[in-house]
């Protein structure tokens, strides 16, 4: 084997990759050739030096950059990352969520808004039921037979209502006709088409109360009967003595407002009525309104007591035998005095 060929095999000889035949030939040649032996020393030093080169480590942020390029989350931060990262998209989503919640709160839920009691049809029906006498047993039987199987939110329609009312004999006029409760709340409030079908009358009163009106004075104790807002005798005595009913120390606007409310509540309850809607002027004005329901029998007494609180303006009071309930809207205005 010549030197050129031997020198070609020297690296493989060093790494042990020569086959047996070549290995022996190279070894034999190296024993007698100084030049090739020197070449072998070079390759030995060369290989050692190259293998000793220290490997370069990847940058410390290699994983982070890789994850960014892959647009994936590092698996080791699963929970926190799940909640908050990747920040670019999650921040947008979270901001959108907050805005959506804020939108719902401010435009639909409106927690900051003063809520008025709502006049629900169920309340109306219940009030009417309280006023109307119960139908006779036979009527109940008929109604039961004809009652619809399904449950309606608003109405309990009795069987053949028109027939019952129109066919009612004169002798039975004193007994209450069977109520014809409409399936619609609006119909219950609608003006009656037929006199005999009217059971609820709607009216509006304007009560003008000046600064000295009893409306703005503290409520006095009501008699046990509850029929009158205040004891008439005591009132007469006070009036005859020349002392106004309400001559007390000036009170602030808030106090006056709540005294109005107390008076109205006392008056309505005293006449077996209910306040179905109350609107107090909380902005500092002087106009309040109440919608009350009264049984027909309490109307006169109620109006009489109401007139004690101040002059009343109203259209003609509807009258009729079939009226069972009055729905009265009372608008209280401050007088000019």
């Amino acid at each position, binding site marked *: 084997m010549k030197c050129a060929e031997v020198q070609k095999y020297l690296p493989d000889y060093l*790494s042990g990759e020569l086959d047996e035949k070549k290995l022996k030939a190279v070894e034999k040649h190296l024993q007698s050739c100084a030049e090739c032996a020197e070449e072998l020393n070079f390759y030995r030093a*060369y290989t050692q030096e190259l293998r000793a080169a220290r*490997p370069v480590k990847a940058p410390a942020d290699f994983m982070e950059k890789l994850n960014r390029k892959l647009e994936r989350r590092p698996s080791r931060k699963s929970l926190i990352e799940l909640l908050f990262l990747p920040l670019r998209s999650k921040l947008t989503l979270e901001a959108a969520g907050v805005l959506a919640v804020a939108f719902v709160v401010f435009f639909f839920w409106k927690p900051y808004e003063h809520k008025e009691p709502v006049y629900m049809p169920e309340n109306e029906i219940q009030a009417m039921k309280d006023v109307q006498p119960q139908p006779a047993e036979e009527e109940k039987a008929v109604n039961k037979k004809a009652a619809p199987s399904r449950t309606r939110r608003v109405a309990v329609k009795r069987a053949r209502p028109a027939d019952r009312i129109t066919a009612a004999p004169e002798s039975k006029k004193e007994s209450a006709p069977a109520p014809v409760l409409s399936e619609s709340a609006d119909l219950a409030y609608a003006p009656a088409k037929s006199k005999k079908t009217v059971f609820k009358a709607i009216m509006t009163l304007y009560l003008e109360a000046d600064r000295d009106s009893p409306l703005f004075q503290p409520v006095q104790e009501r008699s046990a009967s509850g029929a009158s807002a205040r004891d008439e005798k005591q009132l007469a005595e006070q009036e005859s003595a020349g002392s106004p009913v309400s001559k007390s120390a000036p009170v602030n606007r808030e106090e006056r407002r709540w005294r109005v409310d107390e008076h109205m509540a006392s008056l309505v309850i005293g006449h077996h009525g209910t306040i179905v809607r109350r609107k107090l002027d909380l902005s500092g004005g002087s106009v309040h309104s109440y919608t009350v329901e009264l049984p027909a029998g309490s109307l006169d007494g109620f109006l009489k007591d109401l007139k004690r609180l101040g002059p009343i303006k109203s259209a003609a009071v509807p009258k009729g035998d079939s009226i069972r309930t009055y729905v009265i809207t009372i608008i209280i205005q401050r007088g000019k005095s």
Partner: protein
Amino acid sequence: MSGIPLQNQAAEEDRKLLDSFSRGNEKAFDDLVKKYRDLIFNLCYRYLGDYDEADECAQEVFIKMYHGIAGFRMESALSTWLYRVAVNACKNRISAKKTRRKYVAEPARDSGNPGLDTRGDSSFDPAGVFENNERQMLIRKAIETLPPAERLMIILKDMEGRTYGEIEEITGIKEGTVKSTLARTRKKMRILLKDIFP
């Protein structure tokens, strides 16, 4: 030459991680990256001679692994497969971008050796990263003066001690061609490094 059989423990560990990753376990992918990132980065750095380029290239390798691991048949070691991907990625960068070579330029030291590439770059100082003596630096510079194909042979065979079979598998170059290329390249290295190895 057939693939390297998965016999040793490392290969078995790779296989388990690959199975786990193919079932959707991202942690397994992280483990594989942590295991091979230095190896692949080192190859890219030695081949390209540019730290930032090597960083980009190594990441490209793992991105390909992330998306294309399904095509890996486990007929060879994962490291061999990654090497092949890395070599191809480096070749593409070299040919497409005429890769800038950023080396520590110390012309005064190289003045007596016209064979060494003294092209320099001031943006990065690799000497501060991994070179601790002048001999290592001169060897590396000598390697970088070689054409890419020859450089790759020196890196794989003389620096990393890969077998001819592995080199053929990684580069796709037949063993005979590898040997002749290496013989020719070593002669060049012998001349380039005559100051170090007189």
